[in-house]
Structures are given as structure tokens and as C-alpha cells.
């Protein structure tokens, strides 16, 4: 039970995507429980994880949707992209095919999320450098060309896992501060929830009547 303090100010929705077996669930598990799950069963549809983090003094609840990588679930998981503030796109550095499929994952993400969604590319299994099949440089180039953030990480050792999740949150938070991300939009993937003591820092614009529902 994640019985938690309820005094966080934002909820960010993340979605983790990528081919089967690249380690999506393990990355999530490492991030939420700081443990490595050696024998991770296949995910069915989608699973969830949460963790409360802090960005710029604000408590943020990350609501993470960990999707199934199996091709047969692709149609099901496509239903879940909507309203994601962050998308973690994962490939396995030891399996080139998982890297080659990135453009397809990216297309889905671009089509099914909104323009302000932060997309973070993760090359997982960086601990298996000996079996490397995708160089850092080419992945970095792919990320740069497509305007993605990028790290190589290891769900096993925990290397860069924290960074990937936190950097994504920082970028989303920055978008809110810059006004690029409209909190009132239903699809922003961000919910503002003023903590019980104290007032929210930024007063959200009172434009809810503009909603065209």
C-alpha cells in the first residue's frame, strides 16, 4: 500500500513504452522500490506505480503507467497514451531490433499525446556493455534529431534510473512554469492539487469556462 502523505501539489502521468523485454517494468520497479526484479513476468495491458518526488520544492506525485510491450497488446496500450505528461521510451542496448522499432514507438507517442508531452529515451541494460549492439553515439544522435532527452541506464544497477524519471519531471515542471503546458487542458497529464497547508504558488488562470466540451 502506498499510503502516503497526501500533501503533494501536482500529479504527473507518465507512460513507459517500448518493445517487449527491454526492461520497462524493471525500470519502474527500480525507481519505485529501489530493487531489481530479476524475473519480471510479462506485463498484461498496463500496470501502475507511484512515487512522490520533489521538484523545486514542490511535491509531485508521479503516476506511472507501465505498458505491456507484447505486440498483441499494442492496440490496448494505445488507449493509454492519452493525457501523459511524460513518456519514457525504452530500448535494450543489447538488442538492435528494439532500437530499430523506436521510430514506430515515437510515431505512436507523437500521435497519441499532446505536443507538450516530454519524451525521454532510455537505453536500458547499460550494465551489459560487453553485449552492446547499439552505440551510445547513434542513439544520442537519434535523440537529438527528434528532440528527445536521452540517457543510457541500468534497471539492474540503478544507474541513471532516478535521473531519467526526475529529469522528465523537471522538464514538465519547467513547461508549467513557462506556461507552455496548460494545466486546465484535460490532456495535459498534469493535475494540480494544492497541498492542504499553504497556497499554490502560481494561480492557475481562471479560464475553465473556455473548455469546449
Amino acid at each position, binding site marked *: *500500500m*502506498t*499510503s502516503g502523505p*497526501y500533501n503533494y501539489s501536482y*500529479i504527473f502521468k507518465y507512460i513507459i513504452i517500448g518493445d*517487449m*523485454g527491454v526492461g520497462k*517494468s524493471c525500470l519502474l*520497479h527500480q525507481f*519505485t*522500490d529501489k*530493487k531489481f*526484479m530479476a*524475473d*519480471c*513476468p*510479462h*506485463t*498484461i*495491458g*498496463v*500496470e*501502475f*506505480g*507511484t512515487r512522490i518526488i520533489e521538484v523545486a520544492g514542490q511535491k509531485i506525485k508521479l*503516476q506511472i*503507467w507501465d505498458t505491456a510491450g*507484447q*505486440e*498483441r*497488446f*499494442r*492496440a*490496448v496500450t*494505445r*488507449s*493509454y497514451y*492519452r*493525457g501523459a505528461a511524460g513518456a519514457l521510451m525504452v530500448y535494450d542496448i543489447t538488442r538492435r531490433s528494439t532500437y530499430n522499432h523506436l521510430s514506430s514507438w515515437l510515431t505512436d507517442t507523437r*500521435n*497519441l499525446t*499532446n505536443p507538450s508531452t516530454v519524451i525521454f529515451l532510455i537505453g536500458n541494460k547499460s550494465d551489459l556493455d560487453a553485449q552492446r549492439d547499439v552505440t551510445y553515439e547513434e542513439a544520442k544522435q537519434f535523440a537529438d534529431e527528434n528532440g528527445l532527452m536521452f540517457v543510457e541506464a541500468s534497471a539492474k544497477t540503478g544507474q541513471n534510473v532516478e535521473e531519467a524519471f526526475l529529469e522528465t519531471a523537471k522538464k514538465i515542471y519547467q513547461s508549467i512554469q513557462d506556461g507552455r503546458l496548460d*494545466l*486546465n*487542458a*484535460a*490532456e495535459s497529464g498534469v*493535475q*494540480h*492539487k*494544492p497541498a492542504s497547508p499553504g*497556497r*499554490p504558488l502560481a*494561480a*492557475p488562470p*481562471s479560464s*475553465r469556462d473556455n*473548455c*469546449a*466540451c
Partner: protein
Amino acid sequence: MATSDSEDFESADEGQNTPIKKDRKERLSSSNYTENSRELDHKTKKTQSSSTDTVKNKEEPKSSDGWDDFDIGDDEILVAQNAVPSNTHVLQSNKNETIDSNYSQDKTTKKSEETKSKDTGWDDFDDWGQDDNTIEDPYKPIQTQPTRQETKSIYPDIQEVTEKLANTTTTSTTGGWGWGWSVDSILTTATAGISTLTNQVSQGISTVLETSIGAPDPEELARQTAKEKEAKANSPDGLESNINTNNDKVDPKSTSDAFPFRGLISEVTKFVETTGTKVISGGLGTLETIGKKTMEVLQDGDPGLAKKRALLGLAPDEKPVLSQILREAKAKADEDDRIREEKKEAKEVHYENLFDDFEGLVHLEALEMLSRQVNMRIEERMRGLSPEKRQDLKETLQQVAELCEMPEDDEDDNDPSEDTFKSEAFHERLQTATQDLGLKLQFQPIVKQYTEAIDWLSSGGELTEKQVYKRAVASLAQATALSVELYHKAGEMLLVKPRRSTADEADALTQMTAVLTKHVSELATLFTEKLNELQTENTEQIHNYITNIFLEAGNSSTYIQNAFQLALPILQIGAV
């Protein structure tokens, strides 16, 4: 090929499943929808040798069968983005509250102070002043005549009053009462608040002017500032005189040099007049709030101001004893603590919060997204049909919906009375209900949760009624969350199920719904029975708890039936 495919997938998990089960449960995850010893009931299993790669290879060709048209709806997702998912209403309403509270300054002040005054009124009042103090340059000249008169006539009065009050307090505190500081500080803050307000009002007016006729000549401005400073220096004794001198000094100028465009003046003054009145009436509202608030704070825990009067020496015959005051202060602090504790507890026993914690809300949200997507597909298919075929399709959909109608309560089955068998019986009922579903749903978590609740209640330890109540609400919330998760998983698995048998599936899910709704009411009964057993004088509290538990059980039932309804399109699409 198709059927073996799904089994392949499941058996691939099987070997790995058992050792990590505990881990996974802690995470409350839902992925191990795989075979387990209890559910090894039917169907032949394939060998477990399949590595991830072979599974993948087998799966890949399947990707094109039947499901590729699912993305047709993709465009529509974007179109439908305005729709707000209704199950996020809890958070949504929070958001709305924030927006509301920002609508108008007046409202916010009133509202927040009303709520705050219930707990720690003292600090909050100070905060109020601080918030507004951020406004810079408080001595900007007021450049218009009509508003000047109004401001002048209002503010001195109030300031006089507060200042007088402040003075009185200060003098009386010299008498040595330890309590004087708080009253004193309130009044000073009140004064500060009013002065910032005055400044805000005047600033508002000057901004209006500046923006409507353009900024005044810089030279003129410099001259004014110089005069202002002079005036300030000459009247060191308070804000009141400051404002007055400002007004007096600026005023004649505003009609002469400050406004070179005489033609504009009448228009401008009219505009300013109305704006000014608006600003001032808004300001008055705030002042009223301050006044009310001051009285509230003064009277806080001291109705009729008896104590403060005594402190101020207004009733010299009833001098309070210091120990008495300290005792009261302590009592008040204790009361505050108690209220804070209760609030914290209220959150902990809050059903919706708990339901969210157990991931019920997010499963419901996911199920809703799935349901909506499938509905869109059905509608799409319907649009492409001839009127005749469309009618057929509608009938089919209706038939499936009818299959999913809940039967009337049949209280025929007799519960095994032994607690130890209850959870096993529950597991059996779930399995029987869903045996024609053609999926391997994971019932362990909800069964285990039931077992744990029964064990906890029969552990024989001393339990207070509050403990039982808390556990009851938490158990109901968790059972409901796990039930919703079952519908969500069933929905996902049905959508990738190779061969659909809609009638069986509908029947199975209907039965499962009956079992689950019965389960939550059983769970509630279990806890209320325990509450009734407790030896306590506080019967009224017990009754309240029992009522609440049944209310939450009803809530749980509703959630479960809603989840079932969300699964309906997923059943329907199997038939079309």
C-alpha cells in the same frame, strides 16, 4: 494457432511466477495473471521451455489478425481530447476549487479566513498582512479629485480606530501581562493591513490613469517625488498624515500642470470615477472582512471579550489569575492539537483516498479509457453499415447488454459459518463464476486480503472501536480497488483473446459481479459484527461507525457495478 498463442504466453510466465509472488504483491501490481496451482483446472498446457524470444516470434504474426483496425480510432482520440474523464472528479474538483478561490480577491480573503479561523486564526491573520505587503512604492501620488475625497473620508476613520486600539493595548501591556503581545500584534498587523490597502487603492487609481492617458512627464514625476519625500519627512508620525499630505499636494497639480490635455480630463475623470468607486467598494469589502476578522480573532476562545477586557483593564474588579490564563492557553493548544489530529485521521479513513492508494482509481481510469476506445470502434463500424445491417448490429448490442443485467438478489446460498472457510468459499465462487470466461484471472490478491481481514478480526487482541472502523473502511476500499482491477484486467485480456464467446463471457462477468458485490457486503457485515461485540459505553459512536461502514459498502457496490458497465462495450465488440 490462435488459441495456442494465448496459452503460450501464459505458460511462459508460469515457471517464474511463484518465487516472486511476494515481491509483486507488495507492489500491488497486477501483472501475474498467470497460471497458479489453484487455477490449473482446464486446458492442456504447453511446455514451459519457451524463452521470451520464441514467445515474441510466435506473437508477431498475430499482430495483424483482427486488431489492426483498432488504430482507426486514433484520429478520433485527438478530437475527443476535450472530454474530461469523469472518474478523476475528485481531483478535478480540487482543481476547480483553486480556480474559484482565485476569482476575486475578496472572496479568497473571506473564504480562506473563514476556514482558517477555525484552527489557527492567529498566524493566518499575520500572513494576510504579509501577503499584501509586497506591493512596492506605497506613496504614489493620487492624481484625481473625486476619488481622493472618498478615500480620505474612509480611511482616516478606520485607521484612527485601529491605531487607538493599538495604542491602548500597548499601554496596557506595560502592565506586564504575558498575553499582551498577541493582542498587540494583531492590532499592529491590522493597521499594517489597512495601510497597504490604502496604498493599493491609490496605486490602482494611478495605474489606471497612467495607462489611460500615458505616463506623466518624467520631469513632473521627479518634482512630485521630491515634494513627496519632503512631505514624508515632515510628517513622521504616521501613515494617516502621509496620505493626507500626498493627496493635498498632488491634487491641485492634477488639475493644472499634470494634465496638459484638458479636453481629455472630463472623460478621464469620469472613467476614474467609476473605476475608483469600483476599487473602493472592493476595498470596502475587504475592510469589512478585516473588521470582522479582527473581532473574530479578539473573540477567539473568549466570547464577549471578557478575558481581553480584563486584560485591557476595562473590568478591574475581575482581574484574571495568571495561572488561570495559562491553563486556558494550554487547553486551547490541546484543542488545536486534537482538531489537527482529527483532520489527519479523517484523511486516513477517507474512503476515496484509500481507494486511490490501492490503485483503484487509476485502474478505473484505465478501464474507462479502454471502454471509450472500444465504443468508438463500435460506432465507427456502425456508421459504415447499411440501415438494415445497422439495425441488426444494434439488436446484437442490445442482446449482449441484456445478458449483463444483474439478476435479482438470490439469497439462496448458505454461507459456511466457519471463518477459516469463508475466504476459500469466496475463491471457489469466483472461480465457478468465471470458468466460462476463458481467461485466467488472478484472484489471489482479493482472496488474500479477505483472509487477512478475517485473521485480524479474530486474532483475539484488544481492539478499539476506532481501530475496527478504520480497518473496515480500508478493507472495503481495498477490496473494491482489487475488484475494479479484475474488471480492468479482464477487459484487457478479452480484447486480445483470440476466440471470443460473448454469451459465455457476459454471463461469467455478470456472475462475477454478483459474487463481488456480495463479497463487499459480507466484508462490511464482518466488521460491523465485531463492532457490536465490543464492550463499550459509547453506543452512539458505534452506531455511527456501523452506519458509515454500510454506506461505504454501498459505495463499493456502486464502484464494482460501474466497472462492470465499463466492461460492457468490451464484451459487445466480441459479438460484432
